[in-house]
């Protein structure tokens, strides 16, 4: 973690580009952004991300930021969270949002889809027990609805409860009276979202040019 502390050379960047699938231009571009966010430091801390003004209105910004510090998203089989990340981790997390290449096999597409879904799943499954429990789900829905103000916590709970029941009914089918649906596993998660175009919905077009000067409101 945080292995990439030295000033990146061209070689390093190319190496990173190869590993993450970004183009060299994109990597350079993202590196500039990384430097900007971290205030020139080699590592990025949560506070850096929390201070992004554009992010302030995002209802699930906590989850998003947390995702960057979540070991599960770094590609290795780690778990738990870290305090600061280097550029490499930053890039690896962002690589989850690369759009799929135009010509890939069906299997590759499925893999990409699964990775994107996994990222989403990890965002919800905060305690890393492999399931999204009702509590976790409620939390997400509450956060989602928090931006619209007028809706009370009760409604959010009702909705997440209904959603949970829905998952249970779709995935498990009928349950015996004494059964209890513990939470959404990743398989169930895949199942309920299989109608969605995950690969297009979870993709960002990373610019090849430097856009940091073109921002408005910055």
């Amino acid at each position, binding site marked *: 973690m945080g292995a990439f502390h030295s000033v990146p050379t061209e070689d390093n960047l190319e190496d990173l580009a190869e590993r993450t699938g970004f183009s060299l231009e994109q990597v350079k571009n993202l590196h500039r*952004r990384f430097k900007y*966010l971290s205030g020139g430091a080699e590592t990025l801390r949560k506070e850096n*991300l929390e201070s992004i003004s*554009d*992010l302030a209105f*995002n*209802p*699930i910004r906590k*989850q*998003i930021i947390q995702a*960057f510090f979540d070991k599960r998203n770094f590609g290795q089989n780690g778990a738990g969270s870290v305090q600061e990340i280097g550029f490499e981790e930053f890039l690896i997390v962002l690589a989850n*949002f690369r*759009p*799929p290449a*135009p*010509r890939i096999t069906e299997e590759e597409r499925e893999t990409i889809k699964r990775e994107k879904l996994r990222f*989403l799943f990890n*965002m919800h499954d905060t305690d890393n027990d492999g399931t999204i429990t009702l509590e976790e789900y409620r939390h*997400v*829905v509450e956060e*989602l609805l928090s931006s*619209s*103000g*007028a*809706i009370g916590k*009760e*409604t959010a*709970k*009702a*909705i997440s*409860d*209904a*959603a949970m*029941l*829905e*998952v*249970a*009914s*779709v995935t498990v089918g*009928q349950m015996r*009276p*004494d059964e*209890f*649906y513990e939470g959404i596993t990743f398989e169930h998660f895949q199942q*309920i*979202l299989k*109608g*969605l*175009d995950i*690969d*297009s*919905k*979870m*993709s*960002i*077009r990373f610019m090849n040019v430097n*856009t*940091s000067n*073109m*921002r408005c409101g910055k």
Partner: protein
Amino acid sequence: MVRVNKKVTSVLWLCVILSLRTLGSNGELVQPENPSAALTQRPLPPIDAVDDVPQAFPEEEKENLPVFTMDYPRIQVPFEITLWVLLASFSKIGFHVYHKITIWIPESCLLISIGLIVGAIMHSVHEEPPAVLESNVFFLYMLPPIVLESGYFMPTRPFFENAGTVLWYAVIGSLWNSIGIGLSLYGICQIEAFGVQDINLQENLLFASIISAVDPVAVLNVFEDISVNEQLFIVIFGEGLFNDAVTVVLYNMFTFVADMPVVDSVDVFLGVARFFVVGLGGIMFGFLFGLAAAFTTRFTSNVWQIEPLFVLMYSYLAYLVAELFGISSIMAIVMCALTMRYYVEANVCQRSCTTIRHVIKMLASISETLIFFFLGVVTITMEHEWNWGYILFTLVFAFIWRGLGILVLSQIINPFRTIPFNYKDQFGLAYGGLRGAICFALVFLLPENIGRRKLFLTDSIVVILFTVFIQGISIRPLVEYLVNIRRTHKMETINVEIHSRVMEHTIAGIEDLCGQWSHHYWKDKFKKFNDKIIRRILLRDNRAESSIVALYKRLELQNAIELLDAPLGDISAAPSVISLYEEKASQKASKKPKRKFLAADIQNMHDILSKNMYKIRQRTMAYTNKNTLGNNLQAREILIRRHSSVRRSIRPGSFRDPSMSKSQKYFSLPAGQSLERAFPVTALRNGDHETASEMGYPSTRPKLGPPHRYSSRGPMSRRLDTLREAAASDSSSRPSSVDFLNERGGSRPPSRSASRQGPAVQKAPVPTPRRRSTGGRHHSQDEEGPENEDGLELQPLAPPPGGREEPQDPFWGEVRNPLLRRHPSDPDNTRRF
């Protein structure tokens, strides 16, 4: 089926002709000074008519007060229009009697075929086709509904996500096609052998602009069914829409230019400038009128009877004003619909919302049907000018330029897209370029001073027929073969909604985070602006409502309505609503009919109904009272009630009470299938089915259920009674379920008899033991009591409608609902009685 259609149509048509003829000749008699000139009929020998009706018009008593008169010319125009519309509508019914026809053959093909048949009949009796299609009629009355519908039901979200691409294909693609085809045809005209040297460049361009208008309806139907990806769908949709606008602008320009003997370079420049003025002006007008409409509906809550009118009138006004100033009226009406829709639907009550949607759909459907219908008629009845060379080359060029255009434009746009179009998508886009109603109407309206008007007319009819028939029929197998997408049905579940929302926020957040910006960025900004300012001005109740909550409420309501309706459903709707999950099972199951109502099921239904129908009952009552509704209160109530019940059932402990958990689960678990099935059937009734109409734009149109299903919002008490009736009659015909009914009747005889007599019916379904067992619900039921009785007093019990004895099997049958299935075997079952 086709045979039946033909028969029906020809019989109908004969009736029409006969009646017109009789009436027409009578009209002559009444007003001899106004001979049959106005009539479409060939004048008949007057002897017939006199012989036919000698009594009705006793000429010698003319000075007296006539006992019976007939004045056909007075009603002629509306009368004939009505008959045409009816005829077209009847043929539409015909197609959907056997719905598989419309899967393999697009509806437009069928309509044209019917038109051809009618045309042939008219031709054989030397009838003139009706002069309904003339420039003003078309542009002022037929076109607006079609584009209004497209604009109003435009899937907003995907559209704005792909707005650039859509406009790129629509605007540049149209120009590309028009200019490409026009120039190529001009080249053909230079070849002496074809004998068409007299067509000059302007006329060629004019014709090319007409022929490049694509009509997406047929393609959209196909794409919807085989679920191509969303982007392809929206691009076809948007292209068809904006393409019309571009085409009409080009058309107007070129008709103007075609008159000019010489075209200066200045004129070309002015033409380009005008193009932008017209387009952007239309957008601006539409936007303004849309805002005005939205603002108006803020104050219409007390006059909800005419709420839908505001929407329609504002859109039409936008159209007319744009027409007045000669700017793009299509853009105006589309923009108006797009702008107002969101705010209007938040403002008006749900019933108005439903009405608006239905009326818009209906008008558009009729317009389009008529145009296709006339296309068929005109094809037969008009004189054609046939020129092999010109017509064949038009076909070839239309095909080639479309293909080339898509290929080239896609290569240019692809680097700017997150998900580029691959070759299969591009093939779908190119092959989906069917020509349709707009194209025909435009060419039909060509001014008479175009020398080769007839050739153009023939030519475009050939192109339309070719694309509609050949491409329209072959596109489904082709795309299916190419795209090889498994048929996944679009699921509308809360989870999907929640996670789509999560994904959007995530993407927006990540983009913010890494300093990229795209439409998510602008969407975020717009949303903030919208929430802060626009909503406050335009909405009556400006509390922001998340789409998740909206969907949740909608699903609740759907579930409820479904429960009310399910046993009365029509069998024909069943196959289309079978869910993804139950499909395989039901295919086997539906073959062996098992119609029986289990006592427990009925109990369940009553239970659910009595608890959850609050909102609907309220509405019914309000309707009778002509009161306005406080929608929010009731919606809230459902939410709260539901919330408590769901929470109870999800707790592990609560599952110990089987009766409890089951009934809760039954209602609360849409289980995929109930949501799914709600889509085609309930959506039309339900009204505020946003997504359904968004993506389901084409499919909802043909799938209108039989009319009697619209009465489904009838009073609750009657429904309950019908349920019982259904069950009772069912039990008499099928002994298998008698046991259960008896068992139930035995355990609770009073409720059963009471249910027939009135007020007690509402109480009956609520099982008393359960009420006690769930203390928390006491409250809400007490609250509900007076409501029930009110509803009952206002709505006298009607006898169950006849012909509905057959309960809807798919929903209540054993197989489809795993929760219901379990009841008979459940040892605790009797506890509830």
